[in-house]
């Protein structure tokens, strides 16, 4: 049987992560990082928001984009779940609806990297359902 990972292994990972972080931007300046918030209420979870969050965490890291991915509540766009809010440093936050892995990939490649909006995804604005 392979060895079960323990808190001691975590210490080793911590050291390696810290070494890399000194090269990259440190997260004590979160406004300099791309922020991705995944709507994680009942509607979002039922539509696959957790898989999108896993995807964003892994892919942003793989593509070496310094980012913080976190969970948020329902943004009122239950019809368009999974929804994610992306804040690129220096820009207004944008909410993207109907995000699946393919679209999440486009959001990273087109919007986060190049600032282009993504075809086929409705960036929803900040009005709530009540105010429409």
């Amino acid at each position: 049987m392979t060895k079960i990972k323990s808190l001691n292994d975590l210490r080793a990972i911590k050291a390696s992560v810290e070494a890399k972080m000194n090269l990259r931007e440190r997260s004590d300046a979160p406004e300099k990082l791309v922020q991705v918030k995944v709507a994680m209420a009942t509607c979002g979870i039922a539509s696959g928001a957790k898989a999108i969050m896993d995807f964003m965490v892994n892919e942003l890291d793989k593509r070496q984009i310094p980012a913080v991915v976190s969970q948020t509540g329902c943004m009122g766009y239950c019809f368009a779940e999974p929804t994610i809010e992306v804040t690129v440093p220096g820009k207004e936050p944008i909410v993207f609806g109907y995000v699946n892995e393919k679209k999440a990939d486009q959001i990273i490649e087109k919007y986060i990297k190049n600032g282009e909006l993504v075809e086929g995804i409705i960036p929803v604005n900040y009005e709530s359902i009540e105010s429409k």
Partner: protein
Amino acid sequence: MKDLSLHILDIMQNSLAAGAKLIDVEIAENKTENIYTICINDNGKGMSAHMLSKVTDPFFTTRTTRKVGLGIPLLKENAERTGGKFEISSLQGEGTVIKATFVMNHFDRQPLGDIAGVIVLTAASNPAVRIKYVHSTCSGSYTFDTSEIMGVLGNTPVNNAEIISFLKEMINDNLENINYTTG
């Protein structure tokens, strides 16, 4: 919800919205008695008796963004569908306890799913909240406690992708070690 871990994710979001600083998630597999129990206990702001009587109603919610609240009704429905039961108790200012009991070998009991991912992603998004996860089977039990993790990590952010993936592996290794039921 496709699996039980997603229900747990959903209920944990309720605890976070209630301002909990400690969330206790316990899963107990009892094969001898054929019972599978999920218990989620938080120290959030709790609910009044009046509100408590309404939470299993799908048309009740505290949200302002929409008019339905399906998280708790869906879990209740899924537990009862297997012949199990759903209990919720709460004290204002103290916290809330939710207990869902499933008949373990029932055809309609959903699989557990990616519980490690659920616990770790929630912990990474809410580093100020202590999340304790205890899983017990007939072979033993495993406890994952974010206070231990934070103790080791210090100032290193828990939402780092490498740390997230390590923690998921650590939980999964330990769950396999106690022969947890994946299906």
